[in-house]
């Protein structure tokens, strides 16, 4: 994947943590969505997306995050984000993601609130 983007998927007992690294845009957002769809196909519907290593996100990347939220909602699942920068947090709130997904400071609290 160009520009060092990658997605790390950790499946745990009853939930999944997906860690991204690098710029989240159209192609890298799609890679993230693919990873989410795969674990959902495996029956998981509680997902944490950890953005600690992602600083820059464009609006297309965020629109793909919204698609993941919608897919999970259809399955009665939950999505929590963690480790957002203050600016990411502001944009997620502005675009309404905070009403459909949890936003937590770190992985532990994001997992505890699934």
């Amino acid at each position: 994947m160009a520009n060092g983007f990658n997605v790390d998927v950790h499946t745990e007992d009853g939930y999944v943590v997906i860690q991204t690294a690098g710029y989240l845009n159209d192609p890298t957002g799609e890679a993230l969505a693919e990873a989410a769809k795969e674990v959902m196909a495996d029956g998981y519907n509680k997902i944490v997306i950890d953005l600690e290593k992602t600083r820059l996100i464009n609006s297309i990347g965020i629109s793909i995050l919204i698609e993941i939220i919608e897919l999970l909602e259809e399955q009665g699942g939950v999505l929590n984000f963690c480790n957002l920068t203050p600016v990411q947090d502001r944009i997620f709130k502005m675009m309404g993601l905070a009403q459909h997904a949890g936003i937590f400071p770190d992985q532990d609290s994001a997992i505890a609130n699934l």
Partner: protein
Amino acid sequence: MLDLAEREVILIIPMYPNMELAAAQTASILAEIMNFEENHIDEIQFAVIETCINAFEHSKRKDKPVVIKFIMKDDALELKITDCGVGFRLDQVKSSDRDGAVSKGLRKRGWGLEIIRHMMDEVNVESSDKGTTITMTKKKVSSK
């Protein structure tokens, strides 16, 4: 002589995926040199990225590069981002994009200009059928 209170950097990028990152990085390092605080640097980067991808997506002139002028003022960073595309009318964006969306709960697209306005202290759009220039300013003491 360059006026030391106003220094200019110019970056010219092709309409090619990820090139918005070159613009964002250049903005970032200039803002860092100017001692902007970290969140403000991020805000500038998000605004630059959205402006560039709008030019890439909507200008319909992929053969023409995007020109970014960074003007380092004593108290602010000003950016002028110009494409030579088809242009658009701001008043037409506002009505159409917003209305169709509100009903659907989470609106996926049509956020770019709004993000830019939230990130920067001043945003001005000049657009004609010869292209678009977005001028935006981030103050060191930003109210955003």
